[in-house]
């Protein structure tokens, strides 16, 4: 036995009302190790990390630091032992500068006042460690999201973190930013900091992790050493079954043009007009780096930010879309990127969320037809397999995948001609992802035109009939079924020319 592991978890259990979130979970973390913790949503990853970071306290079991039992009962207690959690949603104050964010709550003081000079010098040293090359007096909101992430890490280092827990750190980063982040993480490891890395992106895990711990339904499902980390092996442990065929897609015979945009100009986007077509029974993917203007394009199609110029045709008829209301009337539907912000009214019941867009259609002279409402909700819950106690359950209490299904249910109740989806599987577990792909397939087969944005290459390659790649607000190229491969997409997305043109 050399020295004790830096951090060890022994048989930790945590019960929440109605659910056993952690069931005797154990893991250990060595010095300078990158340990990936993976599992479907609800597998207990977040709870475990919150226990380690002192946000929550376990009911049973021990946490050991350097072989000594440690009572981590507050965030400060965790800090004292060098354990820092970086949340998926960054906890930064956009209106403060970098230095103030790094030292928020621990400002160096002189005579009771903030000692700005010391703070700036020390902060500059901290951000240099993570390779962030900006002035510490820059306001955080002016930085791109990838750099904000680095500020968050610098903040962790400024408290002498020995264990850095990162929850889905790349979920909103571009590929380039991700690479920078990985380089920083590897540097940190080399200098002896240990990383607990949580991600749904298995390719990243494979690329980065020294070891993988898989959780399922709150208990240890297995562990993979560095040379065993393979996509299929991870998926098998996560879902508890063998998933050989990841995407079971069948090619479609495209029908008539369902959605046609001609020379539309996205407000605040590139000055050049954009044109695109989506046929019925077709699934078209939009690929591109974060910030390439994909969401902006789709929101313009849906009337959230109406086009400055250009024409839209749905099913061959000219339509004027200047609000989501117009878009829906024309037969469009949008599953937005941020379902909590724009997709759902979280505090309302499943039934009320499902019926929201179709309420007016079903109403009798402005009076809600409660029976029809219940019926539609019931049908959708059954149809999409939404796991909910009943249709009066509050959406907030559902898992991410089920929430996303509720968003889809809203639109399916309207039977749209064109379905727009923006990152439809972000932050949801593999099982639910699968169901959503199947649903997209089914809709396409039924004659719906599907246009979706995704940052996950596997998804883009797996289910699209055709892919539009965006770069800096323009459509940089289009790839048909036969031309689809990762390299071609990346070429276009990064501003290069496709190899075969």
């Amino acid at each position: 036995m050399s020295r004790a592991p830096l951090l060890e978890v022994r048989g930790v259990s945590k019960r929440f009302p109605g659910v056993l979130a952690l069931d005797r979970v154990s893991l250990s973390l060595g010095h300078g190790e990158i340990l990936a913790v993976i599992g479907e949503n609800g597998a207990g990853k977040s709870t475990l990390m919150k226990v380690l970071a002192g946000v929550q306290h376990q009911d049973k079991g021990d946490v050991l630091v350097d072989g000594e039992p440690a009572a981590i009962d507050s965030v400060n207690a965790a800090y004292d032992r060098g354990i820092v959690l970086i949340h998926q949603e960054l906890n930064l104050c956009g209106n403060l500068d970098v230095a103030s964010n790094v030292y928020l709550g621990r400002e160096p003081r002189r005579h009771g006042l903030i000692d700005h000079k010391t703070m700036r010098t020390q902060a500059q040293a901290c951000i240099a460690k993570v390779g962030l090359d900006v002035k510490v007096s820059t306001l955080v909101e002016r930085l791109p999201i990838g750099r904000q992430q680095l500020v968050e890490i610098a903040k962790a280092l400024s408290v002498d973190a020995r264990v850095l827990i990162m929850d889905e750190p790349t979920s909103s980063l571009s590929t380039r930013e991700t690479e920078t982040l990985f380089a920083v993480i590897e540097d940190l490891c080399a200098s002896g900091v240990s990383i607990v890395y949580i991600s749904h992106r298995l390719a990243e895990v494979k690329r980065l992790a020294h070891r993988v711990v898989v959780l399922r339904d709150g208990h240890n499902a297995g562990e993979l050493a560095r040379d065993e980390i393979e996509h299929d092996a991870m998926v098998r442990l996560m879902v508890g079954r063998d998933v050989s065929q990841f995407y079971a897609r069948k090619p479609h015979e495209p029908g008539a043009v369902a959605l046609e945009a001609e020379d539309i100009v996205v407000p605040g986007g590139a000055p050049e007009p954009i044109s695109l077509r989506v046929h019925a029974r077709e699934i078209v993917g939009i690929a591109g780096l974060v910030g390439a203007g994909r969401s902006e394009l789709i929101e313009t199609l849906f009337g959230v930010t109406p086009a400055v110029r250009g024409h839209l045709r749905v099913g061959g008829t000219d339509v004027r879309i200047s609000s989501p209301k117009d878009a829906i009337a024309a037969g469009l539907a949008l599953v937005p990127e941020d379902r909590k912000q724009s997709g759902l009214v979280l505090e309302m019941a499943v039934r009320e969320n499902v019926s929201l867009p179709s309420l007016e259609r079903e109403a009798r002279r402005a009076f809600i037809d409660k029976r029809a409402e219940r019926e539609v909700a019931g049908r959708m819950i059954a149809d999409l397999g939404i796991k909910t106690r009943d249709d009066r359950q509050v959406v907030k209490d559902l898992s991410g995948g089920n929430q996303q299904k509720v968003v889809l249910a809203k639109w399916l109740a309207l039977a749209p001609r064109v379905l727009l989806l923006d990152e439809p599987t972000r932050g949801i577990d593999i099982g639910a992802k699968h169901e959503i792909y199947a649903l997209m397939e089914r809709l396409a087969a039924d004659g719906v035109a599907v246009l979706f944005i995704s940052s996950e290459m596997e998804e883009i390659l797996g289910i699209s009939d055709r892919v539009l790649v965006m770069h800096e607000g323009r459509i940089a190229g289009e790839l048909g079924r036969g031309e689809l491969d990762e390299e071609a997409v990346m070429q276009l997305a990064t501003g290069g020319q496709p190899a075969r043109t």
Partner: protein
Amino acid sequence: MKKILGITTLLIVVVAATAALSPNFLTAYNVQNIIRWSALFGILSVGVAFVIVTGGIDLSIGSVVGLVGCTLAMLLNPIDERPPGWAWKSVFQIQGCIAIVAAVIWGLARFYGRSRGSGRRLLWLGLAGAALFAAGRYAPGFDLPAWLHLPFVVLWVLALSLQIGLLHGLLITKIGLQPFVVTLCGLLFYRGLTRWVAADQTQGFGSGFTGLRKLATGKLPLTDDFALPVPAIALAVLAILSGVLLNKTIFGRYMLALGRNETATRYSGIDTDRYVILAYAICSLLAGIGGILFALDINSIQPSGHGNFYELYAIAAAVLGGCSLRGGEGSILGVVIGAAVMRVLYNAINVLGIPTQLEFAIIGLVILGGVIADELVKRLAAKRRAARQARDPA
């Protein structure tokens, strides 16, 4: 139902305690008074509940009550020296100005790209305003016959309050101002306007308009010694209409939804601006109805003070009745009971002979206590539900 349990208990406790301590509390006369005051304030509270449900606030209610009261008394009672037709001609001129102001605001909104109204419609609105103004200004003066004058004045005063609400809604949605700011400016503006219009003279109906005043002071005999005050009937009708609107129609559902999450509601294809405007319109209209009844009841309307702070009483009653200032939550019945609790407290303080100076202190404490109790009960219920689920996961 559960939501109003707490406030109903509070009402019963206060009533029972006061009745036990004072034999004069549960007399027919006193109960009738409480009911009348509760109804008058309840109407304002129901109105503000709509705005609170959408996540907004209306601070101008008291000033609208003052403006409506003064305007009503002045128009109904033109002083003898006024030229013939003064009342309706003034109305035409004011209405013309309002139309022009609305057209300008709308134009500004178009300028900012928040509205899609066509330019031509705007022009028509402005021209109609100018025409109305000119008609009021230059038409020959003649008095309307009495049977027409009364409904004309009452209806126009209501229309005035409705337009105030529309204006608030327009400023909030189309220009994107904060509700607090818009209605705070309203609070100041309408108060100043009232004082200017009435030249600080106390207004009233004297001994006239007894028929109309029955709307506020009349009573419907139920038994030999108990009669139901007419405002209670007005409140009942308005509350039922409001309850149906909020719970049974798509308008109410949309307001509740946008109060919780406006973005998601807009993304669901709902013109959220329209429903926000509707909420402010309802609120000001009810403030106008309340304002008319208050004026008829009190019969002495001081331009500088009539209605001061009423918005705060209304908001307090709404909060007591279960409205969340975060939006998306509210029950009309709860709000009505909340207003009743406030009035019962006022009355209890007087009937029990507690010094008036303590009035606000007691009411503030009771509201605070009520809100804390409500929060505790909610948490307890959540805990119990969770425990039940844990025991019985199915």
